[in-house]
């Protein structure tokens, strides 16, 4: 029982981190209909920049802020320089552009920081608990609190602010939104910057959680998150979050606890195909 609860807690943490990564992808898909594989590269860069600032200043706050700003800028550049000019082409064209970005950025990380696994020895200022023999470490608490905070903040932005309204209008119909006086290009850029900043947080959290930062850390999330946004219903942010948490828990329980020797990376896709057979529009996707 104790093992089960511990695995649940770990799974929840992994799911929460998946959610932070998938979120940006779902936002971008919702607004541009682009499969933004390079999002995983932004997340890798977030981890590296965060680690660099942390090593220099030993301030977690500076590290997070710096990584978020840097990644927001990177997301902005990718959107302006790569995606926007390719919007009028069939969807596989921006997708290949995105994959090329992912590879190029990974290589830059490798060239700049070396091919090694770096450790991220940060202690987050969160309390640890001990309940009935089960230890919830401060890292776990941090992952829960931070991801819940970020998700709440984003929920607030997208549903309760004018910016959120403009974002939803733009994702419904860019031309009409523009006609109604929304600067849709700026909204798209903002969406990218928000998604990328969140990816930076996810990168730092993963770095600390596994105490590992390495150039190809984005490779597996890059494609797994694609499966997640499909399961959630393409472009549906709550759906993507729900799917992420379910997958994090499911993976950990099936592989870690039940000991089913399923390849972890394929599991997301098996779940995806199962969901698609049952509900072709995804868990929380609308019809059409």
């Amino acid at each position, binding site marked *: 029982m104790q093992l089960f609860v511990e695995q649940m807690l770990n799974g929840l943490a992994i799911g929460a981190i998946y959610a932070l990564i998938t979120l940006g992808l779902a936002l971008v*898909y919702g607004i541009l*209909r682009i*499969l933004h594989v390079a999002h995983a590269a932004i997340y890798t860069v977030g981890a590296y920049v965060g680690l660099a600032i942390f090593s220099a200043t030993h301030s977690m706050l500076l590290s997070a802020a710096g990584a978020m700003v840097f990644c927001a800028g990177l997301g902005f550049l990718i959107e302006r*320089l*790569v995606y926007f*000019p*390719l919007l009028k*082409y069939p*969807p*596989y*064209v921006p*997708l*290949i*552009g995105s*994959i*090329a*970005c992912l*590879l*190029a950025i*990974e*290589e*830059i990380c*490798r*060239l700049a920081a070396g091919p090694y696994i770096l450790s991220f020895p940060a202690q987050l200022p969160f309390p640890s608990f001990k309940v009935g023999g089960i230890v919830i470490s401060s890292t776990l608490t941090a992952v829960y609190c931070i991801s819940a905070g970020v998700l709440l903040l984003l929920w607030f932005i997208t549903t309760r602010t004018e910016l959120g309204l403009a974002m939803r209008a733009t994702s419904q119909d860019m031309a009409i939104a523009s006609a109604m006086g929304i600067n849709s290009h700026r909204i798209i850029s903002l969406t990218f910057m928000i998604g990328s900043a969140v990816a930076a947080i996810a990168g730092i959290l993963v770095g600390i959680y596994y105490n590992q930062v390495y150039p190809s850390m984005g490779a597996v999330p890059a*494609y797994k998150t*694609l*499966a997640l*946004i*499909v399961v959630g219903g*393409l472009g549906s942010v709550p759906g993507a979050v729900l799917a992420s948490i379910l997958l994090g828990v499911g993976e950990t329980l099936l592989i870690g606890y039940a000991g089913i*020797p*399923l*390849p972890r*990376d*394929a599991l*997301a*896709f*098996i779940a*995806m*195909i199962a969901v*698609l057979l049952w509900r*072709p529009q995804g868990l929380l996707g609308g019809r059409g």
Partner: protein
Amino acid sequence: MSEYSITIGTLIAIQAIVACGLNVIVGYAGQISLGHAAFFGIGAYASALLTTAGGLSFWSALPIVLGITGLIGLFLGLPSLRLREDFLAITTIGINFIVVSIFQYVPFFGGALGIGGIPRIVLFGERLRGVSFFFLTGGFLSITLLICWLFTRSWSGLACFALREDETAASSMGVSPVRFKLTAFILGTAIAGLGGALYAHSMRFISATDFGFPMSVMILSMIVLGGMGTLWGPVLGALVLGILPELFRPLTDYRMFLYAALLLLMIRFQPGGLLGENSLARRTFSRLKGGKS
């Protein structure tokens, strides 16, 4: 020619064959597939198993290999009847990951070790290697191109073009979407299976990682860069993407970065492909032609 460049040439020809197969599905019938390497792999594994454990010769195994890949292609083409573009794209990625994990985790397929000791191809009593294998691959590439050319000229090919352009209109002209999408999937995956069989007998050792998602992306990039839906596009794309990394080889550390950066630049500035419409090559060509007449 050095032995090394012959190996590279053979590999490029094999990838060109596989790319031609994907071109049938994506370029002709307009069905996005991001998991084509899975069929490349299924062909390779089928041929490897039939010729090692099965004891068949390459030639008697080949029809079975084509049948198996075509059949699995038919089965995995079924989602295309139900899913729209992006869902289909991600589903095919998923199929690629799942097929690779099956190769990797099921002992029958050699597990993580892969399959070794694949025999050489024997033709007219001679065991093919080096240059003669290269010519065999070239021959198969020519046959593949011929088949693709005949396909574009057949009513089936025209039906696929119509489906690519507008499915609703095509079906009101008597084109059955089910029938012709699946035709394209069967033909495209069987061609990938041919490429896989050649790959297995050229490498003589295969493992699951050869056929992962990065390979699918590479094949798709080949046809996009070469010119989607054109006859020679896949060959040109395979040449460009096959030779580029070799040119960068002396740059060791920067090689992968330059490759990725160039891919990015090409897709950014020639998104219609090097032979596609409005491409630099096409415009130059038509200007030259215009100047003459």
